[in-house]
């Protein structure tokens, strides 16, 4: 069984974790073009190499970030998201557009 070192709970079985996709910059949904949004939600490099991605430790509901090699499946590093995200990300909706 593969083990992931959870920054909060220590080494745990991989079956306790849920993959959350690559960490990527979200374009501003109110101002970006459809093309930019499609690029963000669908397209990816999908390459062989080290990628930075979200993982969830499901039993404790804790999201963290891992660096993993997509060829060897080696998990090089796991860390708390506060290392990368030091301020709150707002998901505001353009209310004018939403009510139309």
């Amino acid at each position, binding site marked *: 069984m*593969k083990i992931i070192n959870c920054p909060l709970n220590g080494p745990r079985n*991989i079956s306790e974790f849920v993959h959350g996709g690559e960490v990527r910059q979200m374009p501003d949904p109110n101002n970006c073009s459809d093309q930019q949004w499609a690029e963000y939600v*669908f397209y990816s490099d*999908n390459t062989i190499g080290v990628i930075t991605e979200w993982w969830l430790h499901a039993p404790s509901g804790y999201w963290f970030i891992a660096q993993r090699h*997509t060829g060897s499946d080696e998990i090089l590093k796991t860390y708390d998201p506060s290392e990368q995200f030091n301020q709150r990300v707002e998901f505001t909706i353009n209310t004018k557009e939403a009510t139309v």
Partner: protein
Amino acid sequence: MPFSLLKYGLNNDYPFEKNADLPLPSQLKSSYDVVIIGGGGHGIATAYYLAKYHGITNVAVLEKGYLGGGNTARNTAVIRSNYLTSEGVKFYSESVKLFKELSNEFDFNIMYSQRGQLTLAHTDAAIRGFRQRAEINKHFGGKTELIDPQQIKELVPMLNMNPADMPVLAGLWHMDGATARHDAVAWGYAKGATSRGVELHQLTEVTDVIVENGKATGVNTNRGKISCGSVIQAVSGHSSLVAAMAGFKMPITTYPLQAMVTQPVKPFLNPLVSSPALHCYVQQTGRGELVFGGGSDPYPLYSTRSTMDLKESLLAHAVELFPFMANMRLMRQWAGLTDMTSDYSPIMGLSPVDNYYLDAGWGTWGFKATPICGQKMAELVANGGKVPELIKPFAMDRFNSFRQVNEMGATAASH
């Protein structure tokens, strides 16, 4: 008897070389009309139809390994067309029709065996979905219907009707469901294509795609540079990596899919049985082995390694369906790479680069589309990029205009 065998083996007429189905490897030419990257079922089928229907024989199929050695040999050889969307059903129905005639067409037995495919519903929601699929299938001429538990028992007497405390409530019975020998499909196409003049180059890896002014003009390989009129990429499991050589991204994420096979037993299971709720499908091969497959792995990876977790979960569910299998031994286990799109439909057609055509995003539904995809990709290339009506909905561009073809509910095992 042994002496005559020895004599036969040492005889100059030993038929191996002279009557080989595939010609011996030749030198790469410096230029071809069409270069196809990937010598699997799809690539070689496209070459076959280019030569057969469009008279285009100056074609090179470049394969980094050997013919049909990638995902063509790793799928679980299921042929069916009971999908959910009208676009999908129309497309896969054409494929089933072509599969039925392939052995005759090739004069080579692909061991096509029509057994019917049974998908199990364990919830009311699944029954509603099945009803819709049955109606769509019938509308497009398929033979699919909703059947009740009594009919299921008659079709598959050994099935546990209450697997994992999830009673079987109904089934989607798809009479067109079939299986065939996947290697033989690639071999049959290769024989037909090479006898018409197509060149198949194995151990020839494309290392770069040459793009000039937004137009593909050739490829670099480990055996030198080739210039060409158009390029088709047909590399399941490596679509994003090859597309990156041509300079664009694809809406694809690559996951491994693991499958396994048991020791052979007496024939007891005629239909192909699948349970999306249990993430499991089972079929018995002509040799008596049971083949199991499930969903793709839970996270992306370019590796065909196997994991204990998947074996445990997949086999636990398989044993729930057929409890007597608990004592059987596994013989082999393997994995393939599935290029998953977010709508569970393939990508066929044009790319952002001119003269560069896509046959990609084949996730877990590639083998069953081999003949029709080859035929339509050939038509696309022969007509200089005019996309055939049947594959128009599957353009990569659908992701930019948010017009996905959602087949998520219709994959054999939900992912």
